[in-house]
């Protein structure tokens, strides 16, 4: 398994076990997120309890930790449904967290009340993705931008120059409009009179009204055309410099993230899988998911034509019932087999797909039987399954285990088949949840050394002497 060996040495090269924090960690972070969880549909309703049903919650964000330092832009990137927007909204307390802790400037956000909370809401703002639905169509631009002042009771006293409080607020709004590149006399207009890019500028002006320190930018440019997107990105850059703002930039477009962010966290199915300084993460991606993601992005250059892209197979699993261990293992091109299994990754993936189907109870025995010649044609049944699942040849113990499992299936004993396959093929990736290491560029993946306290999702059926888990250095290398 040359790939494995490669990766293991890779891991050793990058692991610096001095427990050092990122280089950017000078002083306290402005925002500290620890083990944040947000489950939707948590807790059964009375109705469901009466019916004896248990509701399954959607684990949108499932234990993520990161810091954001003053003046930096941290990117949160991932595909739809990975929980990035939920993270942004939950850490601003726009949604209640299920568990975990968020500190803003040293204060626990979820413990704040009264004045403290109002103060937090002034200092931390958000810009939403969709400029068409995030502005009230019945309010003028001036009213929209000055609404934060009204809510926070500003100005506290009427200005000395004889303007009313309302006039003061509208004047402020006009000033903000100019700052975001629109004209001050737009205050009297309504949102429908503006294009998408202009509306997004209004959204940014509203977020700036209370002179915040921290802004969550939730896909601020993804609804915009490229030429307008570039204008808004430049504007965000300028504003950050001018006001010393700190951004959490949520996006799915990797090119945009690379352009604007200082550090990037890659999310997959509610977890952060990799975190690092932007250039390092893009030039030397560690996690197989990050690599696949970068690989998939079409570059706007002639060299892109004919570039071979091996896309990730399959879809993101449901967050209601995420895979055990590593969330990415159902699509990962580098799942770690037990040491005595000598299959190629492709052949191992085929076994894993069959196992996944069985364990998720998605295996349709009847359909397979319909391909057999007659009721009791076990060889026909088995050869159909082989045809359906396996294109690579298996040998030795691997072949024996698969044959036994298919035999069990032909006897209708799915449990037995699952057990046989698990005994032989179980991967560390499915039993143990990988964690982010304590370093500047950690990756939550078993290909790299894992902390000793990595949570075990499912007790392994046999020991994994070879897999290099639990911080055991030597065994990782000797496996090959």
């Amino acid at each position, binding site marked *: 398994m040359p790939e494995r060996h490669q990766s293991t040495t890779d891991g050793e090269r990058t692991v610096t076990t001095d427990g050092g924090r990122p280089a950017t960690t000078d002083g306290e972070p402005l925002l500290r997120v620890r083990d944040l969880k947000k489950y939707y549909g948590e807790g059964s309703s009375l109705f469901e309890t009466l019916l004896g049903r248990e509701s399954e919650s959607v684990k949108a964000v499932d234990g993520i930790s990161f810091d954001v330092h003053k003046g930096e832009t941290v990117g949160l990137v991932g*595909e739809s449904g990975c929980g990035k927007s939920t993270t942004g909204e939950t850490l601003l307390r726009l949604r209640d967290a299920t568990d975990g802790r968020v500190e803003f400037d040293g204060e626990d956000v979820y413990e704040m009340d009264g004045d403290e909370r109002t103060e937090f809401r002034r200092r931390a703002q958000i810009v939403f993705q969709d400029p068409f639905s995030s502005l009230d169509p019945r309010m003028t631009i001036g009213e929209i931008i000055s609404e934060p002042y009204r809510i926070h009771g500003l100005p506290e006293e009427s200005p000395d120059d004889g303007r009313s409080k309302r006039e003061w607020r509208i004047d402020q709004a006009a000033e903000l409009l100019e700052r975001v590149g629109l004209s001050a006399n737009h205050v009297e207009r309504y949102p429908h009179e503006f294009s998408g890019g202009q509306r997004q500028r209004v959204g940014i002006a509203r977020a700036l009204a209370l002179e915040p320190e921290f802004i969550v930018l939730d896909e601020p440019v993804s609804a915009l055309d490229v*030429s307008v997107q570039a204008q808004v*990105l430049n504007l965000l850059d300028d504003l950050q410099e001018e006001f010393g703002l700190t951004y959490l930039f949520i996006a799915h477009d990797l090119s945009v993230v690379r352009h604007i962010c200082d550090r990037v966290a890659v999310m997959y199915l509610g977890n952060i899988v990799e975190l690092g300084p932007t250039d390092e993460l893009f030039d030397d991606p560690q996690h197989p998911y990050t690599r696949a993601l970068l690989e998939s*992005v*079409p570059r*706007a*250059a002639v060299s892109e*034509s004919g570039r071979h892209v091996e896309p990730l*197979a399959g*879809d993101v699993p449901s967050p209601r019932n995420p895979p055990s261990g590593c969330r990415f293992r159902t699509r990962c091109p580098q799942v770690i087999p037990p040491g005595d299994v000598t299959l190629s990754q492709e052949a191992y993936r085929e076994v894993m797909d069959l196992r996944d189907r069985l364990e998720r109870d998605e295996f349709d025995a009847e359909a397979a039987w319909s391909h057999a010649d007659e009721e009791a044609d076990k060889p026909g049944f088995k050869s159909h399954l082989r045809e359906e699942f396996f294109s690579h040849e298996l040998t030795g113990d691997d072949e024996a285990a698969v044959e036994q499992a298919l035999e069990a299936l032909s006897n209708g004993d799915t449990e037995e088949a699952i057990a046989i396959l698990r005994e032989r093929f179980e991967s560390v990736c499915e039993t143990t949840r990988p964690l982010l290491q304590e370093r500047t560029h950690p990756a939550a993946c078993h290909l790299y050394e894992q902390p000793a306290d990595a949570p075990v999702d499912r007790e392994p059926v046999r020991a994994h002497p070879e897999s290099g888990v639990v911080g055991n250095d030597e065994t990782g290398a000797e496996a090959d």
Partner: protein
Amino acid sequence: MDEILRVRDLKTRFFTEEGQVNAVESVSFDVRDGEIFGIVGESGSGKSVTALSVIDLIESPGRVTGGEVWYRNADLADEFREKRSEAVDGDFVDLRRLPKGVRRSLRGPSFSMVFQDPMSSLNPSITVGEQIAEAVEVQRRARANPRSTRSRTQGYGLGKYLVDSIVPGREYTSTESKERAIELLEQVGIPDPEARAEEYPHQFSGGMLQRAMIAQALAGEPDILVADEPTTALDVTIQAQILNLLRDLQREQDMSIIMITHDLGVIARMCDRVGVMYAGQIVERGTLGDIFENPVHPYTEGLLGSIPDLEDPSPRLSPIEGNVPSLLDSEMGGRCYFADRCPNAMEACLNSIPEYDTDSGEVVGDGANAEAVHTARCVLATREFDAAEALGDDYFGDRAEASDPETPDDAAEQEVVSDA
């Protein structure tokens, strides 16, 4: 390679309450056998309407008002050589001059389309397999009776509908077409196609639905597949799957694809030649290399300068200032439509600009220089920029101001497009 489609001077108008919208303005391009031709542009640039005009799917209040769409089909040419000689040129027929019924019968076996949003393009209350089988069935009946449109969709009238609702078990599709549907699902890479064919659209993920849409489009084995933003609604890893699938299918079936997208990366990965659209015109077209490495039109340059590069993040993007202009006829005027945003606008740009061959600097059109590979609707194709003739920054008035009134009309036009 021979052309399969020659579009010449195509014009499409929408007649709205605000006035006449020139959604497509004198568009010309060719599509060759077995190539992927890309049309790239920002929203409202007219790229979707161009494709819909080619396959005659424009609906009221829109109308194709001018131009020719030459499609190579020897059988059709023979059939109409006598009857309508003006509509035939060698093996080519001008689709716009053929009877409506014939044009309609070409949808499926000649042209077919994959839409942007797979969620809203499939019927949620019919199983995926059944919907694809319907498409297969339509094509099967059409083949049995090629030039009749009655045998296809109109055969299913009110009478049959009533009979079907009273007598259960009578279906439009047959067993053969259902089997073919399963084959198609397998061909587009849907695992376990027999089981998935029985499922409803909501049980499919976005990527799987887009595969099903493609299967449906392939039902008639089209010569030309129009893919309108086929991956815009999808995540990047799923996008990679679908793009690979489209490329493989294009090679296997030797069809041509017209790929419409706003994403220059998708263009670069997929296309052989590209047309860049702005304000209803193809402002520049050429090979991938022409467009990405030697762009002539300042809009093409601006578009390329606006996208952040994944490999090499430049500290500052150079966006195009201003906004897309109104496409209202009354406001269009006879100048280069990009002049008000163009950094290199000169006095010559205030005239209407024809398409130039960038090599020779000669005008392309009316059969002249039709071979030109790299063309641009820009004065800069014929001469260098001359600062002495440059228009002042404030020539078009305050840019922010000038662009404001455009929005409601723009929105109206967008709605029209999606309705069509």
